Structure formats: C-alpha cells, structure tokens
C-alpha cells in the first residue's frame, strides 16, 4: 500500500515537473526573443500630430528663411527685398527636434540672446552659428542689422567676407583689445537712444586672456540690451578659478551638449519666456542645424553687399556745381558738396574759421574715394587761379598721380618716402614762392603712416599755416591729439575713430556712408537732434566711368569752359 502511494506521488511530481519545465522553456524562448515594446500606431499618430503642430507654430514664429531648410536641393533662393521682414526677427531656428525619427520639427528660439555651452571649435556649434547668422542677415531689411563678430580662430566668419566692405559686418575681432572695442560699442548701443537698427554681437570663441571683467560686461549687456542680440558660444568662458566656467547668461536660451544631441533650455526671464515649471528644457532629440553650403552663404552675402553699396552710391553729377566749371570765387573760402543726407546735398567749407578736415576710417572704408570725390568737386568749382592743391600719399595707394593728371589745380604729388622731404619743402619752400592762389589745399591720405617727427611737422603746418592754407587729412586709427584738435570738421567712415569716443554715430556705417561732424566729433545730448552732425552718402566718382571721363576731359582741356 505504502509503495503504491509513493509511486503515485512520484508520478504526480514527475507530471508537475514536466509542466513546470515546459513553462520555464517557454519563458526562456519568450525572453530570448524579447524586444522593447514598439510604439502603437495610435501613439505614433499622436506624436506626428504634435510634430505637425510644432512645425506650424514655428513657421508662424520664424517665417521663410528664419526657419526654412538651407540644405534643400536645389539650394533655396535668397529672399528678395520684398520677402525680407518688415520688422526685426523675433524668433529664429537653431535646429531640428524629432518627435519621431521621421517626424522632425524646427526648434525655434526667441531673440533674445542665445548661449551655447561649447565654442565654435565644436563643428556642430560652428555650423549652427553660421546658420543662425545667415538666417538673420538674409531676412533683415537692408541696413537694419549690424553684425560684430569675435572669432579668434576664424571658424565662423570666413564665408561672410563679402559683407566686410559693405559696412554690415566688419572683419572679425580676434584679440582682447578688439573684444574690448566691440564691447564698448555694444555698451554705447545698449545705453543709447532707441534705434531702428539691431546690433548682433557674435562670439565664436574667446580671445586669450578673457576673464571675469569680460564675463561681467556680457552679463550686464544681456540684462540691459535693447535692439541688441548676443549670440555667444563657449558660455560661460573658462577662467580662473572656475576652469569650467560658471553662471548663466541672463535672458538667454541655453543650448547645451547632451549625448549626441543638444538640450535647449528656454529662458524664464525674457519677454518670450518659458513658464518656470518643469521641464524647462526641450528634450526631444534636438540636432543643431549644420553649416549652410558656402555657395549659399556667398550668394546671400554678395547680394546684401551689392545692395548696401548700391543704396549708398550717388552720382558724380550730384556733387558737381550746376553752373560752368571754375566759376566760383575762393576769396571767402572753399566749399564743396561732399555727399547727400537723405535727399539734401551736404556742403562743407574750408574757411578762416573752419580751416582743416580730418577723415578717418579703416582700410577699405572709402577714405580715398571720398577724397577723390571732394577733389573732383573742388576742381570743378575753382580754377587754378583760385585753388592750388598739393597731394601727399605716404602709403602709396591713393592714386594721386593719376588724379593729378586730370586736375590742373594740382601743383605737386608726393608718394611714399618722398612725403618726408615734401613736408619740409612745403612748410619752408626754397627759392621764390609761386604766385599764390586764393587758397592752398594740402591733402594727406594716410597720416597713420607718418612717423612722429613728420606728424609734428604736419601739426606745425596745421597750426602755423597762413590765411588761405587748408589741410584735409585722412588716415586709420585714432588721430594724433595735437593734430585732431586743429580740425573742427571730422568725417567718420566705417571703422573710423575721428569722432569723440563717446559719440557712436559712426557705428555700423555702410561702405559709401560717412558721418560728417562739424563740432570736433562731439556727439551732444542723447536723443537730441544734432545740427552739427549728419549721416552722408558720399560719391564714388569711379562708379560712372563715362561721366568721369567727360569731367576729366573738360577739366584738362576746356580751361574753365563748360
């Protein structure tokens, strides 16, 4: 009986074991083939719907090129002037978010400021900065956006070189001194009167030696900015004693590396802020926009530069006198149309009280063009019996020799090393003086190339020159103080430093534009109308070769006829 019961129990246990083993084997099979649960069609449809809604809202916030793909094939055509924004951009795309792998949507950020945690040595950041820069440039109405770039390693700005001569975006700053100048300009901009232009300050990398002072200035700028956007990479910059940097940039959207993606955190303290409740960041596989193709950048920049220069250009006829040539009397002084302010010709004088002019601008800003235009204007108005001109070109690139061939008023031309001898000779000429004309004009293109001794001589000439002797001095950088204080008329071109340091009227000039100041460069009260200062579009006499050839022919052959 007992043996039978035991056998029965063992038999039951064996049967149960077989079932248990079967369940274990089935479980092992199920787990071996297990893959994470795929999204259901309903879930995918919901995600696609959300991506569609985000794309639609982004298209409203950042229309056209502000959020379009810049890598489409064929490449997108640059927006025409009619397509550019009537008002400044308020949002711009930085990349693509992905609700699903095949359901992207543009990630837009408010402007504002944008701060990347990596600098442009990270190619993803460099690409995104180029993309942002191109979008904002392409969609801004002409002249409404000025760009300053700090780019020590030239990682961002190279393809934008066509804009350098258009006054839209000067060559990048690469060192601490340049960064200081850019920050000073931005601080003037932030403190100044309300403007109809926007300044975009791009930091593609930090010059060696940047420290707490620069960080503090950027932080203050970000707080105070009006019509000023900061696009900063590598924020916060590493500096002792914070080797990895600390602190957020106020009112800025933060873009931080996150695995192979980036994490976009919207500001909570800006006009278009994210409510301060979690999550404060966009966590959906955001990939930054890659750099636009170079040919697309070049196409846009060339168009913008051409447009800026065309807008600034005025014809030779506008600066020439209406009457016959050489019909004016220089007894009371010289006067000449230097350009046009809006639709009004701007006339400047050289008289007993306004004896000398100072013209300042960086290389390529148009100093020589301005001087040639002024000289053609004077030569058309005053005959050789009224005006004698001496041309001095210490640098050797002013083209004075060719100019002298066409202007009978030019008595002498001195180029390069000969300028030193010329200055001595002109100040104290040997032998009998020629019969003086009513006015004598010395034009120096390139004071910055003169050494201290020659500058002293030139200053002496400016100080002791007798009645009817005038100087027009052009150069780069800050003028020598002794020389500057003898020049009431200051003409500031792009990059020029002849205005008072507190006067930022020349910030953001386009090529072909100048600020003409008749009060030694002083700016005057903020917001006040400045009668002594005008924004002038000056003439490029070489823009119309036919008109210029006609004028040169008349000047050299007519002897004063019309």
């Amino acid at each position: 009986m007992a043996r039978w019961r035991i056998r029965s129990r063992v038999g039951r246990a064996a049967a149960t074991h077989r079932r248990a083993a079967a369940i274990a084997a089935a479980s092992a099979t199920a787990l071996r083939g297990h893959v994470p649960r795929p999204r259901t069609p309903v879930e995918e449809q919901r995600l696609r719907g959300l991506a569609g809604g985000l794309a639609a809202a982004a298209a409203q916030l950042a229309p056209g090129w502000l959020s379009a793909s810049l890598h489409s094939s064929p490449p997108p055509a640059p927006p025409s002037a009619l397509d550019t924004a009537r008002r400044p951009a308020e949002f711009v795309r930085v990349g693509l978010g992905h609700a699903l792998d095949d359901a992207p949507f543009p990630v837009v950020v408010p402007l504002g400021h944008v701060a990347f945690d990596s600098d442009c040595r990270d190619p993803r950041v460099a690409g995104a900065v180029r993309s942002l820069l191109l979008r904002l440039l392409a969609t801004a109405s002409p002249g409404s956006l000025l760009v300053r770039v700090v780019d020590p390693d030239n990682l961002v700005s190279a393809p934008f070189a066509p804009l350098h001569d258009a006054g839209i975006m000067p060559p990048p700053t690469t060192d601490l001194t340049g960064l200081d100048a850019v920050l000073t300009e931005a601080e003037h901009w932030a403190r100044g009167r309300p403007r109809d232009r926007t300044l975009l300050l791009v930091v593609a990398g930090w010059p060696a030696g940047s420290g707490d002072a620069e960080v503090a200035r950027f932080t203050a700028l970000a707080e105070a900015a009006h019509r000023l956007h900061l696009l900063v990479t590598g924020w916060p910059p590493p500096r002792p004693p914070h080797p990895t940097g600390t602190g957020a940039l106020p009112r800025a959207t933060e873009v931080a590396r996150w695995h192979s993606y980036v994490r976009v955190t919207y500001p909570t303290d800006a006009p278009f802020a994210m409510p301060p409740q979690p999550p404060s960041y966009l966590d959906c596989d955001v990939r930054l926009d890659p750099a636009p193709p170079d040919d697309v950048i070049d196409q846009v920049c060339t168009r913008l530069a051409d447009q800026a220069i065309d807008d600034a250009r005025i014809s030779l006829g506008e600066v020439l006198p209406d009457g016959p040539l050489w019909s004016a009397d220089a007894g009371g002084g010289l006067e000449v149309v230097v350009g046009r302010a809006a639709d009004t010709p701007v006339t400047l004088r050289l008289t007993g009280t306004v004896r000398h002019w100072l013209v300042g601008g960086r290389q390529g800003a148009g100093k020589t063009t301005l001087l040639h235009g002024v000289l053609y204007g004077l030569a058309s108005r005053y005959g050789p019996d009224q005006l004698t001109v001496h041309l001095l070109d210490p640098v050797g690139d002013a083209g004075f020799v060719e100019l002298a061939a066409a202007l009978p008023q030019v008595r002498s031309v001195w180029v390069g090393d000969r300028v030193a001898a010329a200055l001595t000779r002109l100040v104290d000429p040997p032998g009998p003086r020629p019969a003086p004309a009513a006015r004598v004009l010395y034009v120096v293109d390139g004071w910055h190339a003169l050494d201290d001794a020659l500058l002293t001589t030139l200053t002496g000439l400016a100080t002791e020159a007798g009645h009817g002797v005038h100087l027009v001095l052009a150069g780069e950088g800050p003028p020598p103080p002794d020389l500057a204080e003898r020049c009431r008329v200051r003409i500031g071109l792009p990059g020029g430093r002849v205005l008072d340091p507190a006067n930022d009227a020349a910030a953001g000039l386009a090529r072909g534009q100048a600020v003409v100041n008749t009060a030694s460069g002083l700016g005057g009260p903020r917001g006040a109308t400045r009668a002594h200062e005008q924004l002038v579009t000056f003439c490029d006499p070489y823009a119309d070769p036919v008109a210029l050839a006609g004028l040169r022919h008349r000047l050299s052959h007519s002897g004063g006829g019309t």
Partner: protein
Amino acid sequence: MSDPTVPWQEYLTAVRTLQAVRDELAAAAAADTRAASSARAELAAVYARLEHQRTRLSGDGVRLRDDPPELSEVESLTAGGPTAVHAALHECRSLLQDIDAALGSRAPRVRRRWWRPGRWLRTRRQVRNR
C-alpha cells in the same frame, strides 16, 4: 508677422505635450525592460530548482525528457511579453513547491536508509575518534 505671443504659447504648449507623451512612452518602455530583466533572474532560479528536482526524480527512477511534451500547451502563457512571462513563472514557482511537497512526503524511505553499512561504519568511526 502679427503678435507672436499666441503662436509662441501654442509652440510651448505643444512642446510640453510632446515631452509628456514621450515621458509616458519612455516610462512604459522602461517598465517593460525592468520586467524582462526581473523575469530573466527569476527564470535562472527556477531552472536551478528544476534541475535539483530532476536529480531527485531520476533517483526515483523517473526518466524526464529534455523537451517536455507539455511545451506546446504552455506557450500561450508567455505570449504577452515580460509581464506574461512573469505571471507564467509565478505559476511555475507554485508547481515547484508542489513538487517539493510531493517528494518531501517520502520521509519514511529516507529513514529506512540509516542502517546502510557505509553509514553505520562512518558512525562507528566517528564515535571511536571522539
């Protein structure tokens, strides 16, 4: 563009909704992964007990096949992913307890073995060594 406040609010709302949906899906995926991991650990323990019981049954002269014929009957139990596997393994654990109970009830047979010569000799040797 007209006032951007409205589309910006729509954008932010959609961003938040998207993140909530993604978080929800991520949580479900994480739970699935956790369940699979837990089931694997439990399966290892089950196999250990099964092997132990298999040895005992072999000692009782029961021959068990490596591919139990009940396999096709129970495959449906594990078809619902890690959660279903977890439930199936729970049932499996109950069965293992039943087997232990069934095999453990044969205690008299174990008692009868105490007089085996080897055991008797070992016991005598131990007594002598004290």
